[in-house]
């Protein structure tokens, strides 16, 4: 991934070098790490918790933990794997809290709002992207994480396996299943997501 961003002198500094600088107390290196990862983490955490404000809070907490536990980083793993793992743990914790709140407020008695097929006429106005995002949101959590890491974050299978702490075979199976589920959910919009796949940019926002 973006392990070769340029430093202040135009020299490419890898993530591991940045971590070494942070460990030695370089505050500017930490700022560089935040700048490098803030949007990537938002595109991961934001699509899991589907709420930008909460996602930003979780990402801020991720960076706080990175700073406080900078000496516990093991160089044999990629920095991005370590960062994604911390962010994922926080996102999981947030989802557990939501589940508990939902249980305590007895909202679970209401019917789960699964992916609903919107009217095709609205799709033309709003674009396909919100529908695709909604379809991704409706995936089971394990499949959703694997799909986002693979198709949105574009991480390799091996790294996804390390982040999710499952075997590579399980990752492959989850991604294949997630794509098949999305295909089934989006069947009525086949022509439109074909359009989307041809590279027409779609604006999407999470609530």
């Amino acid at each position, binding site marked *: 991934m973006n392990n070769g961003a340029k430093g202040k002198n135009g020299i490419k500094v890898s993530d591991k070098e940045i971590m070494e600088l942070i460990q030695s107390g370089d505050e500017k290196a*930490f700022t560089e790490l935040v700048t490098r990862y803030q949007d990537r983490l938002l595109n991961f955490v934001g699509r899991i918790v589907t709420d930008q404000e909460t996602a930003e809070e979780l990402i801020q907490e991720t960076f706080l933990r990175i700073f406080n536990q900078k000496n516990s980083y093991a160089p044999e793993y990629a920095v991005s794997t370590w960062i994604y793992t911390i962010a994922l743990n926080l996102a999981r914790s947030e989802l557990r809290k939501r589940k508990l709140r939902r249980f305590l407020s007895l909202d679970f008695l209401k019917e789960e709002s699964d992916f609903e097929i919107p009217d095709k006429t609205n799709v033309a106005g709003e674009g396909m992207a919100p529908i695709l995002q909604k379809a991704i949101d409706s995936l089971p959590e394990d499949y959703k994480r694997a799909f986002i890491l693979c198709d949105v974050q574009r991480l390799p299978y091996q790294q996804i396996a390390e982040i999710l702490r499952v075997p590579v075979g399980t990752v492959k199976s989850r991604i294949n299943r997630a794509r098949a589920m*999305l295909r089934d959910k989006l069947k009525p919009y086949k022509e439109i997501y074909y359009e989307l*796949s041809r590279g027409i940019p779609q604006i999407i926002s999470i609530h």
Partner: protein
Amino acid sequence: MNCRGVSRRLSAFIDNDLSPGIREAVEEHLRHCVPCKRQLTEFEAIVTAAQNLAPLSVSGGFCERVIKAVNSRQETLEVLSALRYRLSLAGVAFMVTSAAIFFLIGPPSPEPTMNISTTQDSYKNLPGNTDFYIHPETRISSFPVPERTQGNLLVEEELVPADSSFRTDEFILPTMENVRESVNDKF
């Protein structure tokens, strides 16, 4: 390779994560199987659509907020660390002082305990019979006597010999007749 095998490997095929032999087998199947070819096209469209989703961006000033939060957390940790250091010092000082007082003054002397023997045991110390008895020199008048019965009792100053008939487990209070019978038997 059959359709099921291909369907299972379609994602790995798209992501270029198959060994050359298996990839070739999948390609061979896709050349003549229309449903699998259609599924591949749909998968590719989903993947491309997901990759074309406009990326989300953090709100303005996010990086500054993170740096500020880190600095604030660091200050809090430093204060807590200093407080913990002081508290541990105070704890050590308290323990040392307590130990010094203990060794200087010594351990507190044990409370005097009252050795209460049972009534049964105290009877054993009495001379003569181990059972409860009235001592020969005990005056009858020493028994607590209600006033209204006093007239029936023995005259004062008269000695009463020790006898089993006077055991308190049989009589609470000797009557006049008991005493008289006892005296007649003896004399």
